[in-house]
């Protein structure tokens, strides 16, 4: 019995020691943030854009350590397949088939590991694209690989 108790003790303490020997360096467990919910943020929920115009898409991103990349995706929502995460609910036009929709997809990387940054992307809306409901999706990553996203319903008109 004694030997059993001893061996149990040895294994048990080994086990507990292995559980508690957590000598980690500091891990980054914070996601970056992203928002258009401030006065300069663009576009705001349900905003209407016009063909032929040029707009500066603007959003604020932050991170506790270092921001790495961001992206902007503009795509049509003629089939109502997706919706935004903004407070207001926009009135959507009837479902329709895309002929020549605007597709804008660009990725950008950030140098110098900033912890705060204002995204500013100039986008010209071509004259010949389909008008209607569109969806604007921003995303941002930090150096560690955490991602945050935000999306906004917009309209493009003549």
């Amino acid at each position, binding site marked *: 019995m004694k030997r*059993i108790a001893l*061996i*149990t003790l040895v*294994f*048990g303490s*080994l*086990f507990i020691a*292995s*559980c508690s020997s*957590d000598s*980690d*360096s500091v*891990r980054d*467990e914070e996601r970056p943030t992203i928002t258009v919910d401030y006065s300069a943020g663009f576009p705001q929920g349900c905003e209407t854009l016009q063909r032929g115009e040029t707009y500066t898409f603007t959003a604020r991103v932050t991170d506790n350590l270092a921001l*790495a*990349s*961001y*992206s*902007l*995706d503009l*795509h*049509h929502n003629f*089939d*109502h*397949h*997706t*919706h935004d*995460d903004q407070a207001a609910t926009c009135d959507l036009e009837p*479902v329709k088939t*895309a002929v020549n*929709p605007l*597709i804008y*997809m*660009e*990725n950008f*990387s950030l140098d110098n590991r900033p912890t705060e940054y204002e995204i500013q992307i100039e986008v010209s809306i071509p004259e010949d694209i389909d008008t209607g409901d569109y969806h604007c*999706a921003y*995303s941002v*990553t*930090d*150096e*560690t*690989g*955490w*991602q945050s*996203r*935000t999306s906004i319903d917009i309209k493009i008109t003549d």
Partner: protein
Amino acid sequence: MLFRLLVVCLSLVLSTYSFAQQTSIVKGSVVDSVSLKPLSGVTILGENTYAVTDDSGAFQLKSPKNSTVFEVSHLGYASAKFTLNANQSTPLVIKLKPSSTSLDEVSVQGKTSSRIEKESATVSVSVDEEFLHANRENSLMQTLRKIPGVSTMTIGSGQSKPTIRGLGFNRVSVVQNGIKHEAQQWGSDHGLEIDQYGIQDIRIIKGPASLMYGSDAIAGVVDIQPSKAPAINSFGGEVNVLGETNNDLLAVSAGVQGRKEKWYYRARLTYRDYADFKVPTDRINYENYVFELYDNDLRNTAGREANGSFSFGYVSDNFRSETFVSNVNAKNGFFANAHGLEVRSSTIDYDASNRDIDLPFHKVNHVKVTNNTTINLNEHTLHFDLGYQNNQREEHSEPVPHGYMPTPPNSRERVFTKNTYSLNAKDIFKVENHTLSAGINTELQNNNIGGWGFLIPAYDRYTAGAYLFDHFELTEDIHLQGGLRFDAGRVATQAHYDWYRSPRDNPDGSTSNVYLQRAENRTLDFGSFSGSVGVSYIRGNTTYKLNAGKSFRMPLAHELASDGVNYHMYRYERGNLDLDPEASYQLDAEVTHTAGRFNFGVSPFLNYFENYIYLNPTSSYVETLQVYEYTQAEVFRTGGEVTAGMQVSQDFRLDASAEYVYSRQTSGPKEGFTIPFSPPLIGMLSANYNLGNWSLFKDVNLNADLRVAAAQTDIVPPEEITAGYQMLNLAVMSKLNLFNNQNPTLLRVKLNNVFNTEYYDHTSFYRLIDVPEAGRNLSVSLTLPF
């Protein structure tokens, strides 16, 4: 066969049978429950009395007291207990269940399976039919989750796949009838595709087992053993009916088996149909989105499953062969609002019915044909396992344009057609105190793809391995084991191009629209040694084990050659053709001790991966989707399980267990982080009380299970911290002598998640989109044998 007989088996739940008795001498006989041959030399031991059976298996017990408990034991058989009661008039027939699971263990070793398990240096757990019946959940792996160290990755209410000590996907081999089960197990939204009814024995190996099982058995093996041959001149079967309230499930499974002298057969049909499962919340918050749930239904998680199997076999003294044909067919819906990670709105009226399966859903069909043949020669036992598997998987989702991809023509997002051919051969022979096993495993796999969403290329894969394993009996109680294996493999991927054009900038500044190439024609070769050495020492009631092993896993096609958008997860996945085979070194120990009414066990492990392969979320983008790249890193893991049990009284039993895994990446881009899907610290408490007989109900068992999970704060991107939880399950099991006194009906009533607790499982597929686990569920199961 016509006389009243009783089957007494040792199981997790100790069964108490009632006998009647009029005279002071009780006569009876003991037979083998399978062959019905009389067993001589069987000891029947009671308080102040004992008997030994003669050549015809007969025995006489003198002046037994009423209600005395007798223990029946015999080498090679599970020992059994029974209680004598008043009014016993007919002679007793006690059927002893052979405890060995396959022919070689009976003929070569002549030892009980629990003894063999003790002599093996590998840490393993055996699960029998009784356990499966008592703990049956919606899928096989959810049923096995009660075993310390085993957990599951669940996908809704009907599907799950195994994880052992926190490792899952292709790091756990699932073996059925000696053949490795091959589906699309790398996919996180993929279940197991095995009918959980009709399974008699499962052996679960915790720890590296590449030596005997080849690539992938890095974390362990779930080895579903071939069923035992039925008794000579027998015919029998059972019908199982199951109903559940949480997902309105109705399931029926019926099986028959019969045997003449040497030929036998088995057949089984299973059908399950279930509605959306209910969660204890009426809204789900994911990122900034809020989804209102109608009537607590997790919309579109309904499913159905239809399985059939047939087998026939021939058994003689030195030869046994069984051919098994099965088909598993299932259709399962996925939560509609955020399939994977993308938030969708849809015109489909998901709340119209909780039973319909709308988009997104998947359909799977798995055909399996296996043959197991065992030949006993004088010194040698030869095993041959042949297998063919056809796995057809279709993933359907609403055709939605994405990026430069226009609206696809149909809902067939991804289609996989995989054929796997397997051949294993093994020779077991004894040389003095050495039992040697030499064998080969070969497999040929051909995977074809279809549908509009590309994720993994079509490929062919060939693997072959050869091993030699020695079990050396140093003394009766000290056993040494060791072996060496070499495997070689080749993966040949096929080129794949998009079906639509994407604009690409040319060096001269112009832009052209091209069909992008997603995969190339490549042939990759791999080779790896694996091996293990171990010792087991049985000292009275205590067993010590120590085992060191190296296991490996060949990189899979998706790890090597993915290059595309995973719409299920809304991310861009990229493979890496330079990946090396995963190599894992593990040290396992186990001490188990039984003393009277107490039992205790501890099984710690240390594990080091040279190059653990995982899907790493990077900080870069492709076409505005985050790039996840298959990456290799050194990983250190440790942990283990502790179990303790106490037979408080003859009728009352308490069990407790805890499991824990600690993982750290010690190199690579996520150095300092854990690995994905790390399970939290989990404790389980179980109380079992046998009420005895009550009116029509015989052998009534009450069971309470409390599962306590700590919070999982040890996470790696993109995971989120998961809070701890406590969950209580209650069950009542009983036998009912409805139609047939020889084969009582089994009734089980189970209440899962008694308090309708809202909790999250860190390793569930739906955890990523903040969907809680299923709410309260009442299930009633009836098994009618005939």
